[in-house]
């Protein structure tokens, strides 16, 4: 049995709820099209978890000189 703290799997239903919470009304066709792209994005973001980021600040204000 999955832990109650485990993240919910990303499905059409969870995506629909997340979208509605942000005021996005996605059709069933939208959800079908977007779900794999969200999953792919999540997979890319998960790769960043192992990056050695101690003492590295964000470059959100990206002045180079």
């Amino acid at each position, binding site marked *: 049995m999955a832990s109650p703290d485990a993240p919910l799997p990303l499905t059409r239903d969870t*995506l629909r709820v997340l979208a509605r919470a942000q005021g996005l*009304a996605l059709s069933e066709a939208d959800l079908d099209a977007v779900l794999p792209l*969200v999953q792919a994005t999540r997979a*890319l*973001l998960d790769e960043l978890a192992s*990056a050695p980021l101690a003492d590295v600040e964000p*470059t959100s204000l*990206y002045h*180079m000189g």
Partner: protein
Amino acid sequence: MADLVWASMGEMARLVASKAVSPVELVRAHLDRIAALDGKLRAFITVMADSALEAARAAEAAVIRREPIGSLHGVPVGLKDLYCTKGVRTTGGSRILADWVPGEDATVVTRLAAAGGITLGKLNMHEFAYGPEGLNVHYGTSWNPWDPAAHRFCGGSSSGSGAAVAAGLCPGALGSDTGGSIRIPSSLCGLTGIKPTYGRVSRAGVLPLAWSLDHVGPMCRSAADCALMLRAMAGHDPRDPSTSTLPVPDYAAALTGQVRGLRVGLLRRSFLESAGGPQRQAVELAVRTLEGEGASVREVKLEQMKYAAGAAAAVISVEAYAYHEPWLKTRGAEYGGDVRERLLPGAFVSGADYLRGQRVRGLIREEMDRVLADVDVLIAPTLPIAAPPVGAREVDIDGRAHPMRASLIRYTRPFNVSGHPAASVPCGFTADGLPIGMQVIGRSFDEATVLRVADAYQRVTDWHTRRPPSLGR
């Protein structure tokens, strides 16, 4: 007259300044070519024939009156249709902005005009710059001039800029580059294009895709012409607080033709080794050519590049969604399906993920700076492939299928993430006659060395002088 459109921008400027050619003649030659070819190429969204001829007549009068003139006086240019133009619609390649007419010019548009450049029109692009293929469902997808028989991608998002310059519809154009959108079409269309350092050129008045990844730069037929355009565009702009106050060098003066003693770092791992056979061979040969001119070459590695795709995904998805959110909620059906689907995932990326991406950028940038302390430039292929046919979703690289979009941005995106300057330079052709490009990447704000290497290479090779066969001279 046909030869005139294939002259370099520098030569055009010299011909105008010496009164050998009138700017009116020059502009008419390009407008005639646009009229003859653009029905098929679909490089332009808006042709500004009347205002271009009016500007050309004024430029001609200035020469006759011996007034001081700029470095691009009387030379035609094209603008990707995300540069705001006062009184002229700026669509972003979209239906949403199909009738939007800005009240002022983008800073770089003003600067090109101040240098004497004459705008021929607004160029086609992937809708809102969000795609590396150059697809456009609203205005038609630009046709790559290098294959008149089959409709191939120009590459995006600056697809119209690629088609127009390659086909002789204009000698130089503005592109913009968030993940490769100057370098990808430059490679696929046989052009030289440079993404300058982040902060070198103003983004004020340029429709954003992702503010912290967007770069503005020129696409031309030679490094020398890129130097001419970049000098006219670059420099601090109070309208864009991310622009640097560093002085802008005379890039043309930096083109010495010399690379003797230059230290070149070849990016084999994660770059050259995964490219297609023709691309590997062409870049290897180009590196040997630089070596023959006196450069020293050694292989270098960028260990943190494995995080570039994730960092780019975190940043571009959130920034692009943030810009488009109001329209996605109210006018979502007006987007092309591919662009809408690419924008929506940004709604599901957290603030923590976004900032992790921005922190990883710092890591990648720091490593790039460290590697570039020991070499003067890096060399890599621009793309692992040549221009694919429109409609393809996968590409074949040495017998294995790879997803199209990821393949197109794999080698270019890391330098948007790091912000370093990177040019694409023609370095060969496939057996089918399709162009191959090589990237030259430099230190922050050292576009001069990037352009010097590109120009030195072009002085001893002729890839950049070849023209699409069916279009003739």
